[in-house]
């Protein structure tokens, strides 16, 4: 869907001639989640499903629209959103309108903030430490569609198992927790020591002592303790930036531990401000960081 795509110019002409009442204009076509298929005049319409969660009522509406205006088939995008397949351009308007009435918006493509993804988080996942679903909805509300030098993907993982791969996103949040020992409850069973994969706990005078340098704040010791001795202290997010897939993958860089819930919005805003000010056109933030320097990025975003 580049600007010099002759097929798109043809579409523009057809859109103008075929429907005077068409609410979906070409700008929306470019910024929205309309993805051209191989088949002539057929598009995949990507829907906006932050965190991959929705009511079945909304799902039914999507199913109804997919049957009414397309072939009754959907695809689940790799970033958790439902895509309606095989929609003819003549039906863009009706599809968007009917979905909007049911509270279902179209996603974005191109160089902007995409629909955020998230695991179940602490709401119902036993491992979840942070409310990833709530934070995905916040990002969707405040940052979705923000114009950037290139695409910008934000992902929330409730714990360090990182199922949604926040450490491969442009900006990733990974749940963490500070373990706290209640010495009076400890029976020196050493299960926490056995559980720790980072060798961060050692027994000293009958109590587990944590090596802060080795501890990754994963919370496994808290989850393993069968008494009320190793308990959950403050939770937060580890922040990872600059990950991308594509032909030349880039792993994310770890820039901060234990960011608090109330800091999330500000961190995203500062990251986007820096990226928009420094990024070249069609350059992902990881490459901008490589070119301009991590020190510069950290100074702007973390100070």
């Amino acid at each position, binding site marked *: 869907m580049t600007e010099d795509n002759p097929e798109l110019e043809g579409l523009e002409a057809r859109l103008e001639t075929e429907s005077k009442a068409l609410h979906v204009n070409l700008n929306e076509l470019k910024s929205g989640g309309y993805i051209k298929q191989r088949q002539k005049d057929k598009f995949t319409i990507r829907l906006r499903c932050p965190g991959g969660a929705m009511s079945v009522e909304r799902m039914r509406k999507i199913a109804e629209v997919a049957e009414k205006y397309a072939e009754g088939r959907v695809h689940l995008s790799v970033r958790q959103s439902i895509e309606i397949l095989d929609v003819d351009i003549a039906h863009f308007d009706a599809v968007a309108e009917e979905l909007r009435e049911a509270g279902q918006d179209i996603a974005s493509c191109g160089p902007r903030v995409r629909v955020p993804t998230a695991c179940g988080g602490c709401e119902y996942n036993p491992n979840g430490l942070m409310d990833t679903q709530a934070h995905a909805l916040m990002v969707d509300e405040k940052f979705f569609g923000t114009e950037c030098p290139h695409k910008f993907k934000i992902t929330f993982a409730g714990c360090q198992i990182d199922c949604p791969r926040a450490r491969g996103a442009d900006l990733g949040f990974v749940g963490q927790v500070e373990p706290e020992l209640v010495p009076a409850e400890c*029976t020196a*069973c050493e299960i926490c020591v056995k*559980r720790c994969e980072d060798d961060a706990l050692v027994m000293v005078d009958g109590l587990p002592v944590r090596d802060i340098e080795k501890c990754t704040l994963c919370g496994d010791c808290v989850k393993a303790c069968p008494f009320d001795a190793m308990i959950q202290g403050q939770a937060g997010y580890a922040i990872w930036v600059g990950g991308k897939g594509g032909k030349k993958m880039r792993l994310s860089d770890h820039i901060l531990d234990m960011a608090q819930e109330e800091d999330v919005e500000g961190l995203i805003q500062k990251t986007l401000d820096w990226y928009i000010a420094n990024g070249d056109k069609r350059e992902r933030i990881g490459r901008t960081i490589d070119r301009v320097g991590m020190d510069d990025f950290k100074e702007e975003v973390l100070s």
Partner: protein
Amino acid sequence: MSEANAEKIDDVLDLRGVMCPINFVKTKLHLETMEDGSVLEVHLDDGEPIVNVPRSVKDEGHKILAIESEDDGSWYKLIVRKT
């Protein structure tokens, strides 16, 4: 561990050689057959069983009284009060 030593053990369940999570399921089902307040001693292997089962039993609402290492930590006694 003095608390456990003072407890009368009502039943013993040897789950050495039984893998996760079957060892937990057997412990849970066995506890269901016991009277409230009675005490079960479960034998568990080192490794995953001793790391996983005690916490899962606690999460079921039972009270872990003690965990005792046997034969230099090659297996463990988990002492649980049905609650």
